[in-house]
């Protein structure tokens, strides 16, 4: 399979960027999207050209590193799929594929397709935890959590922190990411003592990082590789109102 690629190249955070055209031949339908880029990069090195930087690591859809806008869709055309799990069989001979980095003010480009998502870490540091020192924990079965509650908390906890929600949102809002953590811990008894403090801390930090506001467009949910739902955002909205009256 032969493909035309339009790839965003940018030398550094403050350098101007532009699209560069590449042609790749011999793309096998069994290749993953990132393997296709690997092959391109090896061929660039063979010509002593600087290869394209992109974030990736586990390549099984769980580490959250990969982050490509493919033809304007975060993580490409397939739903519930991270870029690394996207395979070339989803494309056809002669296709032109536009590849860009995540775009949001809070995610500055480091180089080419690689962006800086440390804003997410700072939001987590502002409250995305249960304060329990090592050694402080009670016997595990002394905390009972119903089967359905545990499953629902797990649905929220499945977030991989890739930032597709931000990239796909016309407002660059981080609400889906933040709400997934807030609602994971709000559903479990372990999270209750710090419930109000957590949501206040995380939302304040989110605003400071320069993410936009949620306007309930639902684009994040559509792009999320782990299919985290908008119900989490509704829960966050409840949590923050509740937090007005609680310490």
């Amino acid at each position, binding site marked *: 399979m032969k493909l035309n690629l339009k790839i*965003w190249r*940018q030398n550094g955070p403050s350098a101007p*960027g532009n*699209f560069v055209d590449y042609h790749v031949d011999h793309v096998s339908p069994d290749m993953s999207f990132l393997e296709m880029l690997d092959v391109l990069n090896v061929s660039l090195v063979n010509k002593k050209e600087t290869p394209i930087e992109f974030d990736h690591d586990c390549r099984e859809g769980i580490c959250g590193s990969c982050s490509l*806008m493919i*033809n*304007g*869709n975060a993580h490409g055309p397939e739903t519930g799929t991270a870029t690394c799990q996207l395979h070339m069989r989803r494309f056809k001979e002669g296709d032109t594929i*536009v590849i*860009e*980095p995540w*775009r*949001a*003010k*809070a995610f500055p*480009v480091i180089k080419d397709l690689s962006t800086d998502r440390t804003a997410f870490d700072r939001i987590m540091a502002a409250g995305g935890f249960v304060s329990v020192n090592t050694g402080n924990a009670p016997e595990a079965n002394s905390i009972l959590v119903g089967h359905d509650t545990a499953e629902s908390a797990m649905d929220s906890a499945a977030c991989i922190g890739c930032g597709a929600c931000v*990239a*796909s*949102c*016309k*407002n*660059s*809002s981080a*609400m889906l990411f933040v709400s997934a953590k807030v609602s994971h811990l709000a559903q479990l008894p372990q999270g209750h003592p710090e419930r*109000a403090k957590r949501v*206040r801390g995380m*939302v*304040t930090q*989110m*605003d400071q990082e*320069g*993410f*936009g*506001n*949620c*306007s*309930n*467009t*639902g*684009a994040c*949910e*559509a*792009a999320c590789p782990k299919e985290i*739902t*908008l*119900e989490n*955002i*509704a*829960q*966050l*909205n*409840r*949590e*923050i*109102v509740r*937090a*007005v*009256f*609680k*310490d």
Partner: protein
Amino acid sequence: MAHLKTFLKSSVGRKFLVGLTGLGLSGFVLTHMAGNMLMFVGPEAYNTYGHKLTSTPLIYLAEAGLLAMFVVHMGLALKLALENKQARGTGPSQNASNCEKNARFGSRYMALTGILVLAFIVLHLISFKYGTYYSVNYQGVEMRDLHRLVVEKFKSPLYSGWYLFSMIVLFVHLAHGFSAAFQSLGFFSVRNCLIKKIGWAFALLVAGGFFIQPIYGYFYGGN
């Protein structure tokens, strides 16, 4: 108190207020539409209703409340929209992004439809509230003949056209806004099909109710 301040300063808190005032305004348009339906009963019912509304002193309180809701709703929403534009930053995806396409239809145009609705309201107030004062007398009570003014206006194709267009805009605004407000308040999620349907139904009811009035006025002239 400190928590309330944190809440009101946060993006989520402000969005909450936009949702809350939005629902308040939705309530207003619904009653307004329902009241106007008296047009189909006849000029007397229509004018008497208007007269009763405006002759109570409570009207000033209601108008002040309404104005406050408008100001909060629009002020905060526009500020949030500007922030959102900023948060998007500048970057590669400007041209090729599907972000807009992925967003729910109504949600993409909330600021635009909101501004159009505002323009409509301003013109609407000029045309009616501050429009020509015709007088009429029913059973010895002197009152404003609003019905005559309305019919007169609707006779103009230009005016009716603008009115109909505005109602479509209002429909788009409400179709997303009504259900999204519930999401912003944390009651339901817009994923919830029921609330989505209720939102559409509400928008259809309100905008549709208003929509048939100029048509009726234009063709039948209220006779």
